[in-house]
């Protein structure tokens, strides 16, 4: 009995000691998937954030302190991570995350606490829907899906599309729906939609079926690792149609894993790529900074979005002239024409970034930035 009581008390005290908070720094929390299924995106974004923080260590004359937590590609962990950032580290703003469902889980917490959160590459419309404190530096899936459909139908003149969708992946399900909607609206026809589940590695049954439907283009809104395997198998089965994908395919490793099978593959992305011809000064600065900081590692769009997320918060703090969460949120909502690595960014009334859709094509085993497209909405 007494032992139990003692144990309880000890636990209570363990909980009760709160972390001291220092006044002179501005604290920015970062929650990203550093392990688990989405780690490849989260790690790149973290490096982008860290580069931005290294280049811009102060704002309003105060030092910026970063607090990084791993959300492990898991929603429960994600909510916990944000709670920890807000309650324990007492951050004034939060960056994150890769993956819409993770952003939503964390976003509920930030929203309730009134701490502004800037999403990096969470493209699902639900992330900022009805939220006062949640923003993002990326565009949303309906916009991106329309961009891909416009490019396929108008620029390439492809009329018959097929889709291979990961039903267990919110991003994949959402993006395919918007692609389908826009493509049909433009006058195209989606001849076949087949599903798979995250973690599957054999797509031969689905692909054989799709090949028999003879589409002009196959849209695969998957993550790059799965996408590369799908393209490999498609090639082995003799597929000749064009293959297109979304921003989740944007990873420097895609050509390593996909080899010759990804040749000619086109994906939509945020308007940044190291192969860009007419780089904005900001993009150029980022690319050079990256090369110096991480030699031998190619920068990518996720890293750029991480960089932009940090910079847009600093921009908001500078404009607000103070760094309390409320003022940061207000200034973020008023962002117009912020010059980011991924182009000029304005935050619209739904708190999504408005920027053009970029296009990347794989040519001779290299990613080549094709240019931008304005979707037919």
């Amino acid at each position: 009995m007494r032992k139990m009581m003692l144990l309880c008390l000890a636990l209570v005290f363990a909980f009760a000691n709160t972390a001291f908070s220092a006044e002179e720094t501005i604290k920015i929390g970062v929650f990203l998937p550093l392990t688990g299924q989405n780690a490849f995106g989260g790690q790149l974004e973290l490096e982008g954030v860290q580069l931005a923080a290294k280049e811009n260590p102060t704002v309003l004359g105060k030092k910026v302190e970063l607090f990084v937590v791993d959300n492990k590609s898991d929603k429960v962990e994600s909510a916990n991570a944000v709670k920890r950032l807000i309650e324990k580290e007492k951050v004034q703003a939060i960056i994150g995350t890769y993956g819409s469902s993770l952003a939503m889980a964390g976003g509920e917490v930030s929203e309730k606490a009134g701490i502004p959160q800037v999403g990096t590459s969470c493209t699902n419309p639900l992330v900022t829907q009805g939220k006062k404190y949640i923003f993002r530096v990326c565009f949303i899936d309906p916009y991106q899906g329309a961009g891909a459909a416009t490019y396929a139908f108008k620029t390439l003149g492809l009329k018959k599309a097929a889709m291979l969708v990961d039903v267990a992946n919110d991003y994949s399900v959402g993006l395919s729906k918007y692609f389908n909607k826009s493509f049909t609206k433009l006058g195209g026809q989606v001849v076949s939609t087949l599903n798979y589940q995250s973690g599957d590695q054999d797509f031969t049954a689905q692909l054989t079926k799709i090949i028999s439907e003879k589409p002009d283009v196959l849209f695969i809104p998957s993550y790059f690792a799965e996408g590369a395997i799908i393209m490999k198998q498609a090639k082995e089965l003799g597929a000749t149609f064009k293959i297109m994908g979304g921003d989740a395919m944007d990873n420097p490793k895609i050509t390593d894993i996909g080899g010759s099978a990804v040749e000619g593959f086109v994906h939509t992305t945020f308007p940044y790529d190291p192969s860009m011809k007419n780089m904005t000064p900001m993009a150029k600065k980022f690319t050079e900074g990256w090369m110096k900081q991480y030699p031998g590692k190619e920068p990518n769009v996720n890293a750029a979005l991480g960089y932009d997320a940090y910079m847009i918060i600093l921009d908001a703090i500078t404009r607000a002239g103070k760094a309390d969460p409320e003022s940061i949120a207000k200034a973020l909502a008023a962002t117009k024409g912020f010059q980011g690595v991924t182009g000029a960014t304005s935050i619209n009334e739904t708190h999504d970034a408005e920027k053009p859709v970029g296009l990347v094509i794989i040519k001779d085993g290299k990613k080549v930035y094709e240019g931008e497209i304005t979707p037919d909405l």
Partner: protein
Amino acid sequence: MNSAMFIQHMLNSLTLGSLYALVAIGYTMVYGILRLINFAHSEMFMLGAYFVFWGITLGQLPWPVAMALAIAVTASLGVLVDQVAYRPLRDAPRISALISSIGVSFFLQNVAIVFFQAIPREVYRPQWLEDPIITHGVRILPLTLFVPFLSLLFMLVLLWIVYRTKAGLGMRAISKDIETSYLMGVPVNRIIALTFGIGTALAAASGIMWALRYPQLQPMMGTIPGFKAFIAAVFGGIGSIPGAVIGGLALGFIEIMTVAFFPDLAGYRDAFAFVLLIMVLMFKPTGLMGERLEDKV
């Protein structure tokens, strides 16, 4: 569906099924003798594939050498795992060893995530495996023929070991009654170590084959093939080597053909195996080729 397409589906099934079969043989070896579902089998599968990758990239080894080395290293690791995590539990309730194997599986997987990182890696495959043979509108990858051949070969070798060698006699004795085997002078611990060695070598070999077919390495790559292969082993009758091969092939065919004929069901594909498992367990708990397991009272 025209005939070329049907044959293509058949070939796809054959490749997938024989991969499942290869993994299932390893499962069934260990289960047949120790009555232990070795969850860590999936991780051995993953490690085997990674070891080849390093042998080639870091060690600059030629293909066959890297492969043999990877299989040998993984097999010794399997024996080690048995010695550390399962052997102390031989006298414990069976479930203890099972929980231990779940622990080992999670442990190895997370170690892999920490040290290999979650980023998927590419696989080098020899050119002759890449170029498809095209006849009558059907595309055959050399690998499609290679893997079933290998599964069959392994099955025959194992059958020979189990039924024609002294070690095999020991294995069969242990699987019948481990305590009596001790008393009869069977070197139980050595035989079990050998079983783990062989079982893990098979896991590594199948991991390597899997990586050739689905060329990508990641720490979680073994989980789903592992589950499915285990189901295949139960389906075929766990403990039976030919049963594992038949079960694996059957599962491959069911998965591919259901998608081929009912494309709308493609999203449910991962559930097929489990539904099949539950049906088998309900109606024929010993599987297609399994012996009856007595309740030990």
